[in-house]
């Protein structure tokens, strides 16, 4: 991290001095194995230097900018928890008025996106601002100490959805945000996962090539909140995709246009087992067994409605995609 810089760095110079452009530097204060830190680095790498960022309150904002330090090499602004869609709208309106082509990125956590910032986001999409909104989905309010959000999966334990005699963790379903976003009929909306870097790059570049509002939901494990080892982040994220609980899909103008096929769907138990937040589902208890069945049914449902079952081994399916060489895909 460096002290907040006042010097002017020509963009071409930045490009020359680094093999790969880094928008988010190392040395920030995220927990080891933070999926969100990894995902944000990948997004900003793919986006390149001609962007500016509006960042919602949350872990990403906090761990990157303890005054007077900042891990960002990009123009970056944090205002509040729930106004990021509007803040980005204002930036974009200003750039448009000034005739500049700099792209605005908006970053928010699941709490800032699914819940409290949803109205501002919906307004931004409806008004057609030329902004890529990226939601780093770690399925709870992590920055305030792991409270449930509307993105928390059914049956997961958080500090406000504990398990006990009368409860098996969160009682409600994870909100289907991508469908709600797609219902705005924006040009492009997609889901991605911290386990699939080349897929993230491809989707960021696709989104940035589009003039208009685009949305990316990135599944970003939180070792602290999910209760898995920091070294397992990528593995846990990959299992979420491979079992069907977190399908990787692309939607254009509200229509499903592509999915990442599953070579062979893994049982959801394989995904749930390494995580403390689902530990109560592995007790000898009929309610636990029912919840496991329920979660398996949700994954099966996703596989069905999105047609995730692959046919042959595909180099871009859920087993092949992460082996694609870094930066290998050229889309935009």
């Amino acid at each position: 991290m460096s002290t907040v810089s006042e010097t002017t760095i020509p963009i071409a110079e930045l490009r020359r001095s680094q093999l790969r452009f880094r928008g988010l530097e190392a040395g920030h204060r995220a927990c080891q194995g933070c999926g969100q830190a990894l995902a944000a680095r990948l997004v900003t790498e793919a986006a390149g230097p001609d962007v500016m960022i509006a960042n919602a309150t949350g872990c990403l904002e906090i761990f990157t900018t303890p005054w007077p330090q900042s891990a960002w090499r990009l123009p970056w602004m944090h205002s509040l928890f729930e106004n990021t869609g509007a803040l980005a709208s204002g930036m974009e309106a200003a750039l448009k008025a000034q005739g500049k082509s700099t792209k605005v990125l908006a970053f928010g956590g699941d709490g800032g996106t699914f819940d409290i910032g949803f109205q501002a986001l919906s307004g931004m999409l409806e008004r057609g601002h030329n902004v890529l909104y990226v939601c780093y989905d770690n399925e709870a309010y992590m920055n305030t100490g792991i409270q449930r959000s509307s993105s928390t999966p059914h049956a997961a334990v958080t500090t406000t959805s504990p398990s006990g005699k009368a409860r098996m963790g969160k009682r409600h379903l994870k909100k289907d945000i991508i469908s709600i976003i797609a219902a705005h009929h924006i040009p492009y909306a997609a889901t991605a996962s911290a386990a699939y870097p080349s897929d993230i790059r491809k989707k960021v570049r696709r989104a940035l090539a589009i003039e208009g509002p685009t949305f990316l939901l990135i599944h970003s494990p939180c070792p602290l909140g999910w209760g898995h080892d920091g070294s397992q982040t990528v593995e846990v994220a990959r299992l979420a995709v491979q079992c069907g609980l977190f399908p990787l899909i692309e939607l254009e103008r509200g229509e499903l246009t592509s999915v990442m096929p599953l070579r062979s769907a893994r049982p959801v138990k394989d995904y749930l087992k390494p995580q403390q937040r689902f530990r109560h589902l592995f007790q000898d208890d009929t309610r636990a067994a029912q919840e496991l069945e329920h979660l398996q049914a949700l994954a099966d449902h996703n596989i069905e409605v999105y047609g995730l079952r692959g046919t042959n081994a595909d180099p871009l399916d859920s087993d092949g995609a992460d082996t694609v060489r870094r930066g290998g895909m050229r889309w935009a």
Partner: protein
Amino acid sequence: MPQALEGSQAIAQAVALCRPEVVAAYPITPQTHIVENIAKLVADGKLNCEMVSVESEFSAASVVLGAVAAGSRAYTASASQGILLMAEVLYNIAGLRIPAVMTCANRAVAAPLSIWNDQQDSMAVRDAGWIQLYCADNQEAVDTTIQAFRIAERCELPVMVCMDGFTLTHTLEPLEVPSQEQVDGFLPPFSFARTLDPRSPISVGTLVDPNYYSEARHSHHHALLRAQEEIIAAADDWGQLSGRHYGGLLQVDGPEDARLGILTLGSVLGTLADAREEYPEAPAAKLIKLRSFRPFPVEALQQACAGLSDLIVLERALSPGGGGIVGAEVRAALSELPDAPRVHNFAVGLGGRDVPLDIYPRLLAAAQSSGPTRFAIFDAELDRLPEGDR
């Protein structure tokens, strides 16, 4: 040449003369006509700007924040519930030292629901860290709007121009709309040192730990205190250009040797000035218009009140369980004077209640007959309330 314009229409024209690049709009009575008129200017090609019709006041303020941070002059307007919905963003804009300008078309805050004028809304956000300027008539509101952009941009502080809802916003008056040349000569093109720019990336809105927080608050407070000079300079420079001057921080009007004074903010001033002519037999009194409520002009106020025996502070808001808001601050400022005048603090005209001319002699009589009134709602008819509530 004077034109007959509705207050809101005149404000829209004044804003357009300042060449904003982004305007964010959300409707609420009695502010709506302002943004409607701006939208029409944009639609007619008379104002070239990004008009962002947002989904809430919360977003209106946030759009302005993002736009200024990205390097554009930006404006919005609101009132009442809208101001309160914006509150969190208003603090944020000020704390980030963002030079934005907005109009508050002052209106009461529910409950009880009232669409009519008082100043509870802007008073509720008085501690947000914005400059707050209160206008007595529509010409002053027009001229203050233009001054506001220059003050904001020179001080890196946001400015809220407060004008009474309906009383001003919906009133048709003959007034001078300045020329584009006049405004261009007064207000340079927008420039903001801390603009977000990929060629020189900065991080704005970072986490500030206890090690730095107090210093950040101190510098914000002092920036507001220092802004007094820019408020005066803007009034003087604009006065030279336009021939119209409303005082800088405040304005005193009336006989030099008067022992009585009435201090107020906003359009009530016009009523009091008319009443003074209507009741020539009433005791001589100075009228003190408080134009700048934030920064609160302690020194200017002490000078204006030196020699008074009694000062009536009239306001259109209150802090329930506390009393008058302006009154309390005036008392504190005057307490430093050796012969501080007695302060009589009244609220009048709450929720749009008419303030009649004859309030003037009644106020003066009240100030002379009894000891100081800590605080009372002067025009509340207590006999209409159940016994226990009086």
